[in-house]
């Protein structure tokens, strides 16, 4: 494993499987009376969040606390960032406080990469702009493997706002590494220009893609990042690319429905689909804690010398 986790592309197949296997063991802990391990006692994990987040921040916080690490939460609102402090100065402050790991979410792609050059501890990317969100991809892969028993040869359709989605980018890279086949389904306006170079197929037709999919992953329409008109109306988008119960019936019997959250119910996913037994949306959240525990353990649990 590298010292940092910045991109899903940094992970070799062995690294990724080591994280998933470790998470599998740690997931057992959820059923125990005492959900705490002493492993990271005395280590400090800083959650540095420049962008709003509910589940990712809470998930990292729970993961670090279950491993007995000290957690410092930092959000841009109410900090010196509001007074204009630069990322580098904030990083040097964290360094002076002795952070062993910094979990960063930032609206600028590449912020975690820059940060990694300034701090001695490990940097974990918790989402940077439209670039990557590697722990989300890991928890998605973990959820698929738990539900369907394998990743090799799995056909995964990732549907919706691929252009603004760091989740899609990380998933394409990781799933490819792990041997799954990915198909992106989106309107042409919501696909990145360079998508032709990605290791996946591309389609504009959701109805045609569904019968072949083992997994369908719906992406949130990220209206806060849309400064232009990418589709005529929400209703038209929903009609062509939303997952409703009619479309869910096109899926094979065993297929599962995923969503990284937060959902726009009624836009990319219908409420009854989101709440159906095939949906893994709640499972993804609890799996997120196990996967992030595995990442923190593997980055911080060993000797300093190898880091």
């Amino acid at each position, binding site marked *: 494993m590298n010292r940092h986790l910045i991109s899903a592309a940094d992970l070799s197949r062995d690294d990724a499987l080591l994280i998933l296997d470790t998470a599998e063991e740690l997931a057992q802990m959820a059923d*125990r009376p005492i959900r705490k391990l002493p492993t990271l006692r005395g280590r400090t994990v800083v959650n540095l969040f420049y962008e709003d987040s509910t589940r990712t921040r809470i998930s990292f916080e729970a993961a670090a606390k279950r491993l007995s690490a000290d957690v410092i939460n930092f959000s841009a609102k109410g900090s010196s960032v509001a007074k204009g402090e630069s990322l580098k100065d904030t990083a040097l402050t964290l360094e002076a406080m002795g952070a062993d790991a910094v979990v960063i979410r930032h609206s600028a792609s590449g912020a975690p990469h820059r940060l990694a050059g300034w701090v001695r501890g490990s940097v974990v990317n918790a989402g940077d702009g439209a670039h990557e969100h590697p722990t989300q991809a890991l928890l998605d892969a973990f959820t698929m493997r738990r539900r369907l028993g394998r990743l090799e040869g799995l056909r995964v359709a990732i549907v919706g706002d691929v252009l603004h989605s760091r989740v899609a980018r990380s998933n394409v890279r990781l799933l490819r590494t792990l041997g799954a086949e990915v198909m992106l389904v989106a309107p042409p306006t919501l696909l990145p220009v360079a998508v032709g170079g990605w290791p996946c197929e591309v389609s504009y037709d959701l109805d045609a893609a569904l019968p072949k999919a083992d997994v369908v992953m719906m992406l949130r329409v990220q209206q806060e990042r849309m400064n232009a008109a990418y589709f005529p109306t929400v209703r038209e988008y929903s009609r062509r690319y939303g997952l409703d119960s009619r479309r869910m019936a096109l899926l094979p019997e065993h297929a599962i429905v995923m969503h990284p959250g937060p959902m726009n119910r009624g836009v990319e996913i219908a409420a009854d689909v989101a709440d159906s037994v095939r949906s893994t949306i709640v499972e993804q959240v609890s799996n997120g804690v196990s996967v992030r525990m595995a990442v923190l353990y593997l980055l911080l*649990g060993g000797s300093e010398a190898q880091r």
Partner: protein
Amino acid sequence: MHAHDPAGGDAGPGPQAAVGPQESPGVQPGASALPQGAKTVLGAAEIRRALTRIAHEILERTDGAADVVLLGIPTGGVPLAYRLADRLSQAEHGLVPAGSLDVTMYRDDLRLRPARTLGHTDVPPEGIDGRVVVLVDDVLYSGRTVRAALDALVDLGRPRAVQLAVLVDRGHRELPIRADYVGKNLPTSQRELVRVLLEETDGQDAVLLSENGSGA
């Protein structure tokens, strides 16, 4: 295979722990060929007899093993725990539950080595509350693994009593810990390497003693 090198704790990483090029010296993951100059101190028949004797001692000390749970410490302790459970179940009434208890997250030497691969923890559905837990390991050395196991047990429940069974006690304790059941006391020097090969993982049963060639 469970290699016991004097450099670290008393449990070397098993074959599944071969995670990268930083593997500590003196441990050859997956090497089941006999190391040069290794002396067989226990053969298959002796291991069989030692386990049978331990099983009978457990029956005596626990009044028929009625509420015993055997927990093997990965990797070497786990097959031994299941073998003991078989013998106990045959000798006395119904089934004696067995499982495994991984202690990696509780070790005191985590920061001395690269992050280790976790072993599998599998507690029988009966649980451990109010029961007599017999921890099973292949080699007792510094005692640090057993200390970690005691901490791990506390997080799982509250046994009525905890006992320790080991196939080989090679001495050199660093903590006030002793075994309740010992297959064989094996006087060693700290430079020597004790390896336990088991049918389930290595295709043969043997305890080997060799000079440590790693220079550690």
